[in-house]
């Protein structure tokens, strides 16, 4: 009996060493588990370059602010199309041919100075300082092609869309605005002429959908091309 007791509780010093080791291992394990969870969430839930601009309440006070002057670009009364489409902000984007039905976030400008992106990989971002979809000018929306684990983002298969495909923008009040795809093209991400074309577009009521494509550029942590789908308001 004394031997058994000695085996289970050899000495006070041994018991203390046992406890220290276990606590150390538990601490390290907890740390690893935390890092695992943080990495997983970071890679799959938080998109890079989210909106850094001011909120809607401050739009209009352009003096001294970082909001571009094209903010709140509204059509002049004489520009309102005959269709009398409602001037309502978008709420959802639907592309039936790609099985996309996504929530629309209203985004501004990211820290990089580029159009901001949604703060997750499943929503679509609408450039809120630009044109409201359906109004004359170019409404711009963006979405991720993939996330930090290379899993599909909302626009993963946007490249497969065909000319003539239907795109619907559902407004906050439930109106459905129909667009038809007229062009699909990829541009180098450093091509500044594309910026103007997209954000200051003319020639009707246009909708641009943007996502990444091409090869990864490690230095800039982005893809080297942008896929831009142009759609025209359907009459």
């Amino acid at each position, binding site marked *: 009996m004394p031997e058994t007791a000695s085996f289970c509780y050899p000495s006070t010093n041994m018991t203390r060493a046992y406890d220290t080791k276990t606590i150390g291992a538990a601490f390290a*394990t907890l740390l690893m588990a935390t890092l695992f969870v943080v990495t997983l969430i970071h890679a799959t839930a938080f998109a890079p370059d989210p909106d850094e601009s001011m909120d809607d309440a401050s739009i209009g006070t352009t003096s001294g602010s970082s909001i571009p002057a094209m903010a709140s670009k509204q059509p002049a009364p004489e520009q309102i199309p005959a269709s009398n489409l409602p001037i309502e902000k978008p709420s959802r984007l639907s592309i039936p041919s790609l099985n996309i039905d996504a929530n629309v976030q209203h985004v501004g400008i990211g820290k990089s*100075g*580029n159009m901001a992106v949604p703060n997750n990989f499943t929503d679509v971002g609408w450039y809120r300082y630009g044109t409201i979809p359906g109004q004359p000018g170019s409404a711009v929306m963006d979405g991720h092609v993939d996330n930090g684990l290379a899993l599909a983002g909302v626009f993963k298969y946007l490249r497969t869309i065909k000319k003539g495909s239907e795109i619907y923008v559902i407004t906050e009040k439930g109106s459905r605005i129909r667009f038809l795809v007229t062009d699909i093209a990829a541009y180098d991400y450093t091509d500044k002429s594309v910026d103007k074309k*997209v954000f200051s577009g003319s020639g009707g009521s246009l909708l641009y959908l943007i996502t990444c494509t091409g090869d990864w550029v*490690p230095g800039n942590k982005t893809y080297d091309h942008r896929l831009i789908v142009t759609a025209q308001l359907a009459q």
Partner: protein
Amino acid sequence: MKNKTISMLMAALLIITLGAAQAHAQTSNSGSGTTGNTSGTSNTGTGDATTNTSGTDYTTNSTGSTTGTGSMNTGSSGTTGTGSTSIGGTSGTGGTSGTSSTSGTGSTGGTSGSGTTNSTATPGLPNTGAGGTAAMNIATLLATGILAGAGAMYIRRRSIA
């Protein structure tokens, strides 16, 4: 056993460092000539009109500011007022060009006006992908997952013993 624990702790530190570096590198992008561009030069323009001191015809001209590495912003302003006030303003942030001017008419010289902001900014195309960091993220997940699993097994074994 002590050596084993120390090794585990060192591995943990290594992975934490790796994870921190990866997380830090997540946000970056190339700038364009718009707001928020950190690589651009600072704003050196003056937006306010100068004071008319003569009371006669004069011209106020203020220069625009420049922000970002993209398109330059060259605001110009100032026209001639007739014996009075000219309000010249300029330039917003990161725009292409800003122009503004108001010519005043009247009789009293010596009035100054504050400039107005007029700029046009075109943001750059968005950065809509993160797949290039997948390899690093997956490696981090594997390493931390394996270490956490091994740690849990070790603790379990110790507690049973």
